[in-house]
């Protein structure tokens, strides 16, 4: 893990003596955010200049001065008839699919992973099956999903589910197996049994890995749904981009790309925040010691 004071986030030497400790702490906290904004401003400027000087073809890569107002004004409905997609609808659809698929995946994976870790006969029987499903790329399920469930939400959710379920099951089983036997024995000798042993010891001991699993698999789910939407499930952000391509509307394509990036980033930060809150003991000691 990176030290708390990596060069990019620490206060520069010129700033430290003059600023009161309170302000310094606040500045230190804002610093990563500031440098983040700065990096994007630089990129946007370069892009703008590139487009203005026609080094970049503005027809293929419309500059931010075109795309941003386009997004703010709210891209009109694109497409015709039943294939019509509006921007807001696309976002909501994609997010809902990711969320539902991920939650269903978790609901299935955590109990199954637990059983795999604990009940040996089940493990012998089921583990090879899960291990076979895990490496299949989520997109590979798209034709199956469409054949089985059509081109609606169910298909997208199915693709997300298949994309994360097996991996999360394996990760859950591994997390539980990695709890040291001695820790369990210590808890048992102190009188913990049954559901209390699980709730008070195994769950918090595995919580850091479980939350990391959720975070990593959010990305997997996000990729799965976009791939699915581009490959035939005709709605959502993925479909919006394909539609932009078909209509030679590069503003729409850029809008889709930027939206996907910003949303993915924001949600990842949100999960990170929740992770820090839930794992308060890890966040706290990181602040006080060097690891």
């Amino acid at each position, binding site marked *: 893990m990176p030290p708390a004071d990596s060069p990019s986030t620490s206060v520069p030497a010129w700033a430290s003596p003059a600023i009161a400790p309170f302000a310094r702490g606040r500045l230190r906290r804002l610093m990563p955010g500031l440098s983040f904004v700065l990096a994007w401003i630089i990129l946007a400027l370069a892009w703008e200049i590139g487009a203005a000087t026609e080094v970049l073809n503005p027809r293929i890569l419309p500059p931010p001065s075109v795309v941003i107002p386009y997004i703010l004004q709210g891209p009109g409905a694109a497409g015709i008839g039943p294939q019509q997609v509006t921007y807001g609808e696309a976002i909501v659809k994609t997010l809902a699919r990711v969320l539902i698929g991920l939650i269903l995946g978790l609901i299935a994976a955590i109990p199954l992973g637990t059983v795999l870790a604990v009940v040996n006969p089940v493990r012998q029987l089921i583990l090879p099956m899960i291990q076979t499903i895990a490496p299949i790329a989520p997109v590979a399920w798209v034709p199956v999903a469409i054949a089985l469930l059509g081109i609606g939400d169910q298909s997208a959710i199915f693709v997300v589910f298949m994309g994360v379920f097996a991996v999360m099951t394996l990760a859950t089983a591994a997390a539980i197996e990695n709890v*040291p036997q*001695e*820790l369990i*024995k*210590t*808890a*048992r*000798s*102190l*009188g*913990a*049994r049954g559901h*209390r042993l699980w709730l*008070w*010891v195994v769950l*918090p*001991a595995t*919580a850091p890995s479980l939350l990391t699993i959720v975070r990593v698999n959010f990305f997997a789910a996000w990729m799965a749904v976009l791939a699915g939407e581009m490959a035939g499930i005709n709605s959502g952000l993925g479909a919006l981009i394909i539609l932009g391509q078909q209509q030679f509307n590069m503003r729409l394509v850029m809008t889709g790309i930027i939206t996907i990036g910003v949303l993915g980033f924001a949600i990842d930060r949100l999960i990170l925040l929740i992770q820090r809150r839930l*794992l308060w*003991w*890890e966040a*706290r*000691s990181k602040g*006080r*010691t060097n690891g």
Partner: protein
Amino acid sequence: MAELCFEQVSKVYAGHPAVVDVDLTVPSGSFTALIGPSGCGKTTLLEIAAALIPATTGRVLLGGRPITRPGPETAIVFQHHNLFEWMTVQDNVAFGLRTQGISRHERRLRAGRLLADVGLIDHAHKLPRELSGGMRQRVAIARALVLNPQVLLMDEPFSSLDYQTRRVMQRYLLAMWHHAQATVVMVTHDLDEAIALADQIVLFSGSPGRIVETIHIPLKRPRQPEDSRLQEIRTHLRHHLEKEVALGEFTAAELEALRREGMTADL
């Protein structure tokens, strides 16, 4: 306080006997050290005594009654502290009270009192990873003592600490032991530790482990390491261990070669 008694205890792991025919009586309130080569089943014996694993044959009695499941009368401390990282020192110490369904208010009170007794009250609200190695082990011992166990089992509790800390911890343990009045069984690889603390030292031989000798040390504590009676015991223990380690480490042919070279004359 009660007498702990191993009766013909054996443990077989998947066809391999780990430890066989252990008959051992640990008198009430005494301190017993187990010494033997690595893999002779010392940890196994402690875990059987704590009812964490079943014996293959034989049984362990506490005050005449067989131990069948983990209970508040027995506590165990391992080499690794095994503190719960997500609980403060105080909540760690109070864990045993929590499993017994004792109210939060009383848990706070009793854990606080115990922490004050053992000099850790200033650290009550810290997390385990904010403590030093020695302090973590002290918390682990305090946590084990919170239910006033009759038997305290310790598996190399100080072997991961540096030499100085270990010496301090041994004195600390003596003080705690007087306070807690428990019957103690401690596994150790440190001969000086065994000699400084134990009323009886039980020597094991390796694969499968069995008791070969029990040495009584009827000397008061704290003991002077220079005491000539202790020196004698130390030499005896060292020879035994070196022989056992050599037997585990070398084949018969290698041992014969070493003997011809005069390398193992005293084994």
